[in-house]
């Protein structure tokens, strides 16, 4: 029984939200009372999803770097070699848990903030959750691409329908940027897919097989493919020159998107590790200096621009640019420590940014809000609990020791210092600048002169719950980092070994059989094309 669950858990995680979405579409809706039914069903669905995802933590074997809980089913006609392959390793495990957990937090916010077209919003939200997990767990490039592109569509509609006043230009920016990046990736994937056929005579789009194909190509070809694929992820991360969709999207996005944005940006950083680094280890190593330079520019640039923003949403956008720069720096340094730190920082950034956004959304919840820093002041006297939570998230964001971000950034800087000391020295400046704008925002909102004219509601129970959980986690991650790093370390050792040797990434599909990990049996009946 347990084995059966382990065999199908990933499919359940990917498709369960869709089932709930379908159920929501079918529940008859007549009045406001049934809207609350819809909300309850959706919340229950997201909660169950989170509970299901705990199965992964419980039965994951941290000592193995292979893809666990894997599944292999044929999808398209078998001679095309495009299959339905799912699997989880240390990298995607933490991200999947983060996605299901943050979907739960986000869904709580939906509960309060979304009041028009509730049913559609809930359905889009559930589709989004499903695509997030799909991206993190698919091990077939075509399947991955399908989920990757699909994740744009629910967000597009969320921003377009529920967003701010200038939402339409934001949707164009958001969608066209994302699409532009990913179509070039599609060509690169097509090229790899075809080259695998050239090399072996069989079509396959499974990344385990493409890892070896990719590293056997000529370096110049690898260079082009690496650029195309990395560009797609750099645009969505975003890394320095490709950021311009981010501030606008953040500014116009609905409340729920801002909370989920932490998870969405991680899709790209996940892709950077899984595809850019593991497919083309030699090129990634060669180009790491350039990419790290871009990341450092992003860190400093984002922090400096954020300092001068008076719009809190834009401030958060540039702060994200700066933080994502740290993550990218860790990834491109190709050092195990730094990559582990990057993953750790992915979790922390999601938490701190999510927490700050929950509080800012609470503050600026009026429909025509300009998100201006000037609107409030001296809140610490009026809203003590709000200020307390705000301080914790803010300190988490500036990487104060004893918060999770400190561990993450410390690991990143330590790792990348081994690779490029000078660049890392500049990146360290980012830590200081990061605290400058964050403290500036805190000063303006919480301390500063009190602006009494504005009526402020008390923090509601919902937000208090969300913030208590998030604050606890922020502090917890600061003290208890070992269990998480233990789960990821096997994977990252393998990635580092791959990068050092420039050899294909050797992980395989495994599954639990009677509590022992065994490679899964794949019935391949490839028909060789005659021509």
């Amino acid at each position, binding site marked *: 029984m347990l084995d059966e669950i382990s065999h199908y858990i990933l499919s359940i995680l990917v498709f369960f939200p869709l089932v709930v979405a379908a159920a929501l579409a079918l529940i008859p809706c007549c009045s406001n009372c049934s809207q609350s039914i819809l909300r309850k069903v959706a919340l229950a669905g997201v909660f169950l999803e989170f509970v299901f995802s705990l199965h992964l933590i419980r039965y994951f074997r941290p000592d193995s770097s292979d893809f666990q809980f894997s599944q292999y089913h044929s999808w398209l*006609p078998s001679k095309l070699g495009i299959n339905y392959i799912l699997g989880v390793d240390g990298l995607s495990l933490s991200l999947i848990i983060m996605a299901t957990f943050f979907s739960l937090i986000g869904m709580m916010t939906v509960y309060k903030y979304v009041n028009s077209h509730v049913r559609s919003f809930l359905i889009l939200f559930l589709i989004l959750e499903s695509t997030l997990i799909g991206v993190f767990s698919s091990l077939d490039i075509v399947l991955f691409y399908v989920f990757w592109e699909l994740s744009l569509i629910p967000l597009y509609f969320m921003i377009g329908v529920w967003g701010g006043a200038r939402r339409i230009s934001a949707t164009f920016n958001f969608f066209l940027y994302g699409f532009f990046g990913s*179509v070039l990736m599609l060509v690169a994937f*097509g090229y790899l897919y*075809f080259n695998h*056929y050239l090399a072996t005579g069989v079509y396959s789009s499974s990344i385990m097989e493409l890892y070896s194909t990719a590293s056997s190509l000529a370096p110049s070809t690898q260079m082009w493919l690496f650029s195309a694929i990395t560009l797609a992820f750099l645009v969505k991360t975003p890394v320095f020159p490709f950021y311009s969709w981010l501030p606008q999207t953040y500014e116009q996005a609905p409340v729920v998107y801002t909370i989920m944005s932490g998870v969405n940006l991680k899709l790209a950083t996940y892709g950077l590790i899984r595809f850019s680094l593991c497919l083309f280890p030699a090129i990634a190593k060669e180009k790491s200096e350039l990419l790290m330079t871009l990341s450092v520019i992003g860190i400093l640039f984002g922090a400096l621009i954020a300092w001068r923003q008076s719009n809190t949403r834009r401030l958060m956008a540039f702060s994200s640019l700066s933080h994502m720069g740290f993550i990218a720096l860790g990834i491109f340094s190709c050092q195990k420590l730094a990559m582990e730190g990057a993953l750790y920082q992915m979790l922390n950034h999601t938490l701190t940014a999510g927490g700050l956004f929950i509080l800012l959304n609470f503050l600026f919840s009026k429909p025509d809000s300009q998100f201006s820093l000037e609107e409030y002041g001296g809140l610490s006297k009026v809203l003590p609990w709000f200020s307390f939570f705000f301080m914790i998230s803010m300190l988490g964001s500036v990487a104060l020791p004893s918060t999770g971000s400190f561990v993450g950034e410390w690991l990143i800087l330590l790792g990348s210092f081994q690779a490029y000391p000078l660049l890392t020295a500049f990146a360290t400046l980012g830590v200081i600048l990061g605290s400058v704008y964050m403290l500036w925002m805190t000063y303006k909102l919480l301390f500063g002169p009190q602006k009494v004219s504005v009526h402020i509601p008390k923090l509601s129970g919902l937000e208090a719950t969300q913030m208590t959980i998030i604050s606890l986690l922020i502090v917890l991650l600061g003290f208890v980092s070992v269990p998480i790093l233990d789960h990821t370390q096997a994977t990252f050792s393998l990635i580092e070994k791959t990068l050092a040797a420039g050899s294909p990434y050797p992980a395989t599909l495994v599954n639990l059989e009677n509590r022992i990990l065994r490679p899964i049996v794949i019935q391949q009946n490839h028909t060789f094309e005659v021509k």
Partner: protein
Amino acid sequence: MSSDFLTTQLEASIRHSIQSTLTGSILPDISFFWSASPVLLLLLGGMLTMLLGVFKGNPLKPCISAWYVAIASAFLATLFPILGPTSLVTAYFGSGFLLDTMSKFSFLVISLGTLFTLFAVNTTSVGRNLLRAELLSLLLFASAGLMVMCSAGDFIAFLVGLEVVSVPLYVLVGFQRKTTRSVEASLKYFLMGATAAAVMLMGAALVYASIGSLRFSDFHLLSLSLNHPFHMLGIFLILSGLAFKAAIVPFHTWAPDVYQSANSHLTGYMASLVKFSVVIVLIRLLSVTFAHNSNSILVQYFWILGALSIAVGSLFGMVNSSIKRMLAYSSIANAGYFCLGFASLATSPDSDLAKQALISYATIYAVLSMGAFTVIAWFEESNQEDILKHQLAGIGPKKPFAAFALSVFLFGFAGLPPMAGFFGKFFLIVTAIRHGLVGLSVVLVLFSVASLYYYLSVMSEIWFKPHTQHSILPSENPETDLTMRTLCLTAVIVAFAIGILGPRFAFEMDFKQATEKAYHQPKSSFILGSLVNKE
């Protein structure tokens, strides 16, 4: 040299072919009537509907009896491709009528498309204008012509089919003589179409003069190089005529006008089925290796035309406020996408992958554009010919299902998964990369970002903008809505099914072409030899 040929060899050649055809197969055996039943049924239905119109008092009123006959014949026409033997591969009338998997599949697509159009025509207010006996009969003739085109293995049979399609379409495009624009479009379409046909005939004449045969399978005797200018010119003229029908740049100028001012159902019919049939014809035409391995010039031809079409279609579509005009440019861009497949097929004429990619994208595109234009017809009033983008503002919440269907089709055109367009594009790109056309596939994906812009602009009107006084107010007719919902739901389900399960139909297809019974070997080789010697 050609005078030599005309005086001495033409006569002998004609006599020979008449004799051999008489003894061989001028009267085909009985299996022909079963195999060609879709064509024959549609022709029969066309004649019957025409007759029914005679007994009608007022010709301007809808003729429902004719509609029933048309539905019945289109429905019966689907039976053979579904029920008929799957392995039957035969040629009738020399190579005039090839029955193979590809033609059976195209019979199915064409008859289903016709059935879909007919059902849609009877439900929308704009479609009821088409419910006149003679117009329905022309529609059936056009479908029969498309089938003849798809099953032709011979230029003559193809040309007959093409004319049987074109002439009814000229009439159908121009029958609404309400505005000068409509007349202009129809006249433009007629003049340019007639020119294209003449050009194609000229090409055929040159080909015949060169090799003494018009069978597609004999085209391998042609050598496409500057040493044989007539060969090259002949093929290029034929291809240009076909490019006209598929609206490939620079032969596209008719498309925006015609798409905009024709009845939306007809636009859908043209965009989907005519383009589909042209793709089938080009697959047949391009699956020959030309003499002396001279295919590379064709690759260049399709490379340039494809890149131009993609660029023009994607960029010019951005500036149009009329949604049908915009979709016309989208169809031009899509014609450019097909050129990836044509160019790959020209590189290696026996590549199954290229044929599979072309057929799957042609089918997917047919489903999507049929659906998209049907939704547009649903939005239109009976005397309206066009919808502007801003008229769609806020239509989403008012007509959620129609708007949802239109969004599915538009995202499908853009190639976003899980809609059908994604796999169509993906396999075209993979095919192109496989045949060394990386540049063209990069052109495709870069410009598809531009074309996404105009699809998104429609989306944001539909879903994101509030309803204004300029917005259309679709009539609330429950009966219309029910039928249209069923039709659109069918198209949406097909689009999703292909998008999620992949275009399996194309990958399970057998591309063995039917070949003529060997009673006649073309004597062309020595003619070719003589031409070469004299030049």
